[in-house]
């Protein structure tokens, strides 16, 4: 075997030449697997660090057909890597572990692994991994068809083809129609029987694109959604139904995972936060985890998969013009979680969507939180569907600029909590006034938790760009949501921690990567949002209304808070690159 430097479609018979990327921190296993895969006539690349693997994958997106990764790795949890790969690169991923406990295997499957192998691995198991590559290709085609129905087949986007086939497509016809469709959809001549050569240009789901997607989904109604409908609404000429279908699939998976995770997260509440680091809390949340919040209002709310530079720039958390627009980092979360609709008080309806999504864009929220450099604005994301933040609630809160409410506590609670603050705010002097409202809010919190709140607020997932303080746009941090309303004082911190944890952990896979990226770019190398953030929060004192108002600007503005900054405008640029470099 020995194809050397073969990065284009293999010319030999599939599955020979299958391009495999193996990731394992154990050097012994790495060598063994390499040898085994070579014996299967596969083209092998080995990697002992997850981060390195991701870089490799990102650099040359089409260089690999499948990824095999160990579950336990020092620099990144295997499941996170799995999510990242699935979201960003859409490659099949096989997990491996010495541990065959059912719960672990289940977790692997939940995170999207197409198989879970137990070590020691046998040759025959590796010989068959090509089936996952094949299956994925077939299913992608099928998804489109099944979603669209036969009519869909007949009407390709371009509307030209299959019409000839007429409405009655027999199975056979479907195959040919499908093939034809494939040919049209994909841009090369693909023969379904050779999945290895079937490649569609990978669509880069930019924040903007994702936002359109989410918007379309919301408009249609999550339950009635279908790729064709979405595609039509999105009105993006070059996008194929297939692209939308697979994106939708991921989105759904993501949302459902978020929902599950949020349950887990709730249990984390109550974690104490560590001492606030001098770093400003904002830093911690500064991670603009791609505010994927897909706010209707926010232009960038959607997170794009390829956040190349959008992170910082696009994120528009707020409807406000100031929004720096934290583009939801393409953080791996792209998987569908992005549709966080950031509730915007102003736009009640848009916000509604986010809430209605049962999937809970919590993850997205978390991500966003990351970006919030300024912890101050803690946007609690009530996204979680459980939060049921209905529109009515939103306006209340948002107007007050609550978005920050870091309601810790279970999602359900969040809702309530949220409302509460709103209530309090309303009682406050200026609920409507942005600046003012923030103040009462904080005061309110302060009285309740004071310190604690700050962190949560700081958690901000959304950097409220404008002074508007209206956090409204905020993208409520899912984190906060998960954090459950902190009615309790210490909660806020926990929330932050929680959020961070979530962020790190698994809330959004991308998030983790984001934070890591962010680390590089940002701050003094601190890990922001994730670990530090929480601590920083404590520092946030609410007594600083002006600051609070400024929270929105977060991300991109130089940290106004006392904390040292979280971000520096220059850093943002760095972040951009760092994030998705």
């Amino acid at each position, binding site marked *: 075997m020995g194809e050397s430097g073969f990065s284009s479609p293999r010319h030999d018979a599939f599955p020979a030449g299958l391009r495999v990327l193996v990731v394992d921190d154990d050097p012994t296993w790495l*060598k063994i697997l390499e*040898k085994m895969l070579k014996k299967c006539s596969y083209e092998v690349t080995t990697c002992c660090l997850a981060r390195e693997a991701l870089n490799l994958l990102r650099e040359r997106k089409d260089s690999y057909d499948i990824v095999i990764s160990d579950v336990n790795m020092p620099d990144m949890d295997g499941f996170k890597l799995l999510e990242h790969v699935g979201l960003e690169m859409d490659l099949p991923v096989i997990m491996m572990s010495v541990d065959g406990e059912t719960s672990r295997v289940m977790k692997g499957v939940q995170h999207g692994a197409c198989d879970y192998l137990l070590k*020691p691995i046998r040759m025959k198991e590796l010989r068959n991994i090509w089936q996952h590559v094949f299956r994925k290709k077939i299913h992608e085609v099928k998804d489109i068809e099944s979603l669209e129905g036969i009519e869909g087949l007949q009407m390709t986007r371009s509307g030209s083809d299959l019409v000839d086939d007429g409405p009655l497509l027999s199975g056979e016809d479907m195959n040919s129609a499908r093939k034809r469709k494939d040919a049209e959809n994909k841009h090369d001549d693909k023969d379904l029987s050779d999945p290895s050569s079937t490649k569609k240009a990978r669509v880069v789901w930019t924040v903007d694109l994702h936002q359109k997607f989410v918007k379309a989904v919301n408009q249609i109604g999550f339950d009635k959604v279908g790729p064709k409908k979405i595609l039509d609404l999105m009105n993006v000429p070059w996008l194929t139904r297939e692209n939308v279908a697979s994106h939708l699939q991921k989105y759904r998976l993501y949302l459902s995972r978020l929902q599950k995770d949020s349950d887990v997260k709730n249990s984390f509440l109550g974690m104490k936060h560590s001492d606030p680091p001098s770093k400003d809390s904002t830093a911690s949340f500064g991670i603009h985890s791609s505010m994927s919040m897909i706010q209707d209002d926010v232009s960038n709310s959607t997170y794009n998969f390829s956040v190349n530079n959008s992170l910082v720039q696009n994120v528009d958390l707020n409807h406000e013009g100031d929004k720096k627009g934290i583009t939801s980092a393409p953080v791996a979360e792209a998987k569908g979680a992005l549709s966080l609709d950031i509730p915007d008080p102003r736009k009640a309806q848009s916000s509604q969507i986010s809430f209605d999504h049962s999937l809970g864009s919590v993850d997205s929220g978390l991500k966003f939180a990351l970006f919030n450099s300024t912890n101050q604005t803690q946007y609690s994301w009530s996204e979680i569907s459980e939060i049921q933040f209905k529109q009515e609630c939103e306006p209340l809160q948002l107007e007050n600029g609550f978005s920050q409410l870091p309601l810790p506590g279970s999602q359900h609670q969040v809702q309530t909590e949220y409302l509460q603050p709103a209530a309090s705010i309303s009682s406050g002097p200026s609920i409507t006034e942005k600046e003012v409202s923030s103040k009462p809010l904080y005061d309110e919190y302060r009285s309740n938790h004071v310190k604690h709140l700050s962190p949560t607020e700081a958690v901000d997932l959304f950097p409220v760009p404008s002074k508007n303080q209206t956090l409204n746009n905020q993208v409520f941090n899912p984190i906060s949501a998960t954090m459950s309303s902190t009615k309790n004082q210490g909660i806020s911190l926990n929330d932050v921690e929680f959020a961070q944890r979530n962020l790190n952990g698994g809330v959004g896979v991308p998030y983790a990567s984001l934070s890591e990226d962010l680390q590089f770019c940002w701050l003094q190398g601190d890990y922001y949002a994730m670990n530090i953030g929480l601590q920083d929060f404590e520092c946030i004192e609410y007594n600083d209304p002006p600051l609070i108002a400024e929270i929105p600007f977060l991300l991109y503005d130089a940290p106004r808070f006392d904390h040292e900054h979280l971000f520096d405008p220059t850093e943002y640029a760095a972040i951009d690159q760092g994030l998705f470099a």
Partner: protein
Amino acid sequence: MDRNHLQHQVTCMRKSLFDQGYLDEQFIQLEELQDDANPNFVQEIVTLFYTDSARLIQNIEQALNSSPIDFSKLDDYMHQFKGSSSSIGAKKVTDECKVFREYCRAENAEGCIRTFQQVKQEYAILRRKLEVYFQMVRQADVAHTA
């Protein structure tokens, strides 16, 4: 004669390693992977294992000596070690690792320490045996090619 004799010795020793449970099927897999492209594959892998496991053993020692003992970290290390030893088919070592992890989960420090001694012992025994084995293999090879 010599060659046959050496070869015979190798075969016998190999068999006993399996019979006595020091090695399991994974070792055979490694042997099967060995080919012209990698004629010393098994030895290379085993050497790699020694290096890596030395590091892991040290980590575990450190974790066991710290106080209070961080059981989850300990479990992590042992998990890695178990994965590593399973890669070459070190059956007895892997089995001891399993016992260790049980104690770890139960947060039984004493049990962990005791079991770890067992782990190290099995590891040392296996290592010695394999060294002898490979030496014989090399000798037989030399004789073979001679």
